[in-house]
């Protein structure tokens, strides 16, 4: 046992028992952050703030929500929205935070791609980040179905049906997931369990891992410069604060983060107070009806690009049915970004504007995903300027896959050879 002495202060009492000082140094005071980063690096802390909002508002909602197919709709739309004091506030905060979380995740991710922060020792940060994106998607989807409105119901129907695409056991698997022949009460209750219990625990664990994975390779910076963090940290500690290329996480960077979080919160509560409708689909204010599909089904905005890839394929190739191809493409799209560290064949870590080819690739990818999202929202049977939407969706989907598996390796191999 350690040698415990009579403590000189309350802080010392804890320090002797929990090594508080050491912990604080590792986590904040001597965790080194490059000076050369911009506001885009604050997205992580904003996401953390959003997660806390989701967690707290979720706790408030769960006290009145009833996970029962007969009661769910009214418990949300009547009890929480009309009866519970400030119930509407928690609901709008929860709904908008869920939506905005994805906006920030996308900014966070694309910052990483632009500065090529996913490689040379930062692969685990990247992979755990993409994993978080996937689990967040499951969390968002399982939450979306809880109010048991029409869109919730049919989203659940379509998403669970996706598992029917698994060879041989598909149909049985769908029934097993639903716990019934169709989406119904058992489906609701088990997704409730996933949404409020299992997935949050997994998310918290992966967030912890995501942070941990940053400790050794450290964060990238605006120039992709390789910094010897130990050396620069020592410089800082020895008083050469100006010379050193790093600052401690606290108070150096986190103070700035808090500033951005404040600005973001003003924007967030503006949305909650005055513009909450974009996170609420009007169709979802109709109770679920298993015998009537809404005329036009679409997911929330943040899934649209993947959804469009899912339905982008409309012809069979040999034994592969169109729907299977769509499914394969969809599953690929889900994990595709996680493969970037290995599809990028060059070892350069530099912002995209330092390399023409990569720069163009980046913006084409981004524009393609935006276009996919736009077409994902449009009905499949419409047309734009005389071209059928199905065909446009097909071209955009092929482009996405091509950009990831063909163009990225090509461009980066050229980059490596050209140096």
């Amino acid at each position: 046992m350690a040698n415990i002495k009579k403590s000189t202060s309350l802080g010392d009492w804890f320090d002797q028992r929990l090594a508080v000082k050491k912990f604080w140094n590792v986590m904040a005071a001597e965790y080194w952050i490059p000076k050369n980063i911009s506001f885009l690096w604050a997205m992580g802390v904003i996401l953390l703030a959003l997660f806390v909002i989701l967690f707290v508002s979720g706790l408030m909602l769960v006290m009145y929500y009833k996970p029962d197919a007969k009661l769910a709709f009214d418990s949300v739309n009547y009890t929480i929205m009309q009866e519970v004091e400030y119930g509407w506030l928690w609901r709008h905060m929860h709904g908008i935070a869920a939506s905005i979380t994805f906006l920030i995740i996308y900014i966070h991710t694309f910052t990483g791609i632009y500065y090529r922060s996913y490689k040379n020792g930062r692969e685990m940060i990247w992979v755990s980040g993409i994993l978080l994106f996937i689990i967040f998607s499951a969390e968002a989807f399982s939450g979306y179905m809880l109010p048991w409105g029409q869109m919730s119901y049919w989203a659940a129907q379509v998403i669970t049906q996706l598992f029917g695409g698994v060879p041989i056991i598909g149909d049985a698997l769908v029934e097993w997931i639903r716990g019934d022949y169709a989406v119904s009460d058992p489906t609701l209750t088990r997704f409730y369990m996933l949404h409020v219990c299992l997935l949050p625990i997994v998310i918290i664990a992966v967030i912890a891992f995501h942070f941990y994975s940053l400790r050794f390779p450290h964060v990238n910076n605006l120039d992709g410069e390789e910094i010897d963090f130990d050396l620069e940290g020592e410089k800082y500690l020895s008083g050469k604060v100006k010379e050193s290329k790093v600052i401690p996480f606290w108070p150096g960077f986190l103070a700035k983060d808090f500033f951005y979080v404040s600005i973001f919160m003003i924007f967030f509560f503006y949305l909650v107070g005055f513009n909450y409708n974009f996170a609420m689909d009007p169709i979802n204010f109709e109770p679920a009806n298993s015998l009537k599909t809404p005329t036009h089904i679409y997911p929330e905005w943040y899934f649209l690009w993947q959804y469009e890839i899912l339905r982008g394929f409309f012809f069979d190739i040999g034994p592969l049915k169109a729907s299977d191809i769509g499914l394969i493409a969809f599953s690929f799209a889900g994990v595709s970004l996680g493969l970037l560290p290995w599809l990028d064949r060059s070892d350069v870590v530099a912002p995209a504007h330092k390399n023409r080819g990569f720069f163009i690739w980046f913006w084409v990818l981004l524009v393609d995903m935006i276009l996919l999202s736009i077409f994902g929202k449009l009905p499949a049977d419409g047309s734009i300027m005389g071209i059928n939407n199905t065909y446009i969706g097909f071209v955009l989907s092929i482009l996405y896959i091509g950009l990831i598996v063909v163009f990225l390796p090509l461009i980066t191999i050229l980059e490596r050879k050209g140096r």
Partner: protein
Amino acid sequence: MSLENSERRKFIGASFSAVAAVGGFFSLVAMKKTWDPLPSVKAAGFTTVDLSPLKEGELHQITWRKKPIFILKKTADMKADDNRDVIVDGARYTVCIGLCTHLGCIPSYKSGQFICACHGGIFDISGNAVFGPPPRGLDIPPFKIDGTKLVLGETSPEFEKLVKKA
């Protein structure tokens, strides 16, 4: 406590792994079964419909296992389809689960076709997939013919024959 006898430690480790593996396996089985549909759900899996009052050319919709079922008595000028038609009492019927085989939306019946709005799938009057992403025609639910009645949820030689052809 000594660690000299590492053989003994290895044996303890191995026996623990064996117990844990057996326990883990049975827990997985229990979890799988917990998620299976309940007996009450399974028992409600049969539905009987009387076909005699149906009018020709009008889509009749019922539910079976919480799924919509389309029943259409074909008129003389609707194309017969020996691979899919259910023949009861001399009349031809299209009987199918009204869920698109693509991702499960309910297609709507419009001028002799079933049109799925979700991703643009189209099925003909007999339920064959004719356009879009649906990988196969609308599924035929297992049925048994009992006079002028159709029992859904039970198979019969008639059903087996259709499934083989469709």
